[in-house]
């Protein structure tokens, strides 16, 4: 656990980018959200949103068939939880020209709808060496 860029608390998780580890990623996010006093409904939303966020990152890794490492950072930024995920060294062929990870259209659309509905903001991007995605969800009740 560490101080985030904005002075908020950050928890980092490093795990293999495999389907079997998604439950750990979302359960960890839910536990942290609970500690940060998000409501029951907000925690349920975050569990699903974090799962979808991770899916956008591990699907390309699965398609390439090579082991990847998924890094997740959960940060309390003011009254919001920000989750940033990245997969290291993606094959350039695994991302489209617009920097978005390729996915089967129907599932990608469903992921997009779910994230649009559950979080305040989300996005994904590619750098020279990483495929990354992030989301932000606000907390409705101020922590004491």
């Amino acid at each position: 656990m560490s101080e985030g860029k904005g002075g908020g608390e950050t928890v980092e998780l490093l795990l293999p980018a495999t389907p079997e580890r998604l439950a750990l990623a979302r359960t960890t996010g839910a536990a942290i959200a609970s500690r940060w006093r998000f409501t029951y409904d907000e925690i349920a939303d975050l569990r699903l949103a974090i799962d979808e966020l991770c899916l956008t990152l591990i699907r390309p890794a699965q398609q390439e068939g090579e082991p990847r490492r998924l890094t997740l950072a959960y940060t309390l930024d003011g009254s919001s939880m920000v989750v940033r995920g990245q997969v290291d060294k993606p094959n350039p062929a695994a991302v489209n020209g617009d920097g978005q990870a390729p996915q089967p259209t129907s599932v990608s659309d469903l992921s997009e709808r779910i994230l649009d509905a559950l979080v305040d903001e989300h996005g994904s991007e590619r750098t020279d060496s990483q495929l990354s995605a992030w989301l932000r969800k606000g907390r409705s009740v101020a922590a004491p």
Partner: protein
Amino acid sequence: MEEVFEIAEYSDDSTPVLSVRGEIDVSTAPELRDRLLGVAQDGYSTVVVDLSEVTFLDSTALGVLVSGLKRFRSAGGDLRLVVTGRNVTKVLEITGLVEVFPIFDSVSEAVST
């Protein structure tokens, strides 16, 4: 830490029922896909998928259910869902799939339709 994932299969009034328990995500959805395929290959055109014991469902699971729906409808039948949990209902609502699937409160209602 992880929940148990199970699919029980039985017939109710000669309609096959897949009763799912646990979390359906990218690691467990393939088993649901295989079970749906097995029901179709056994010659059934309609299936009931009972999600009342499902605690989590993501886009991968929805993709499997939508594919199954297309398969069973193309055979002249249907894929009916039993949904009682708030989490599952919410995912179906926000994706608009609540308007696509026939959804029931109980298996008995689903098989008698």
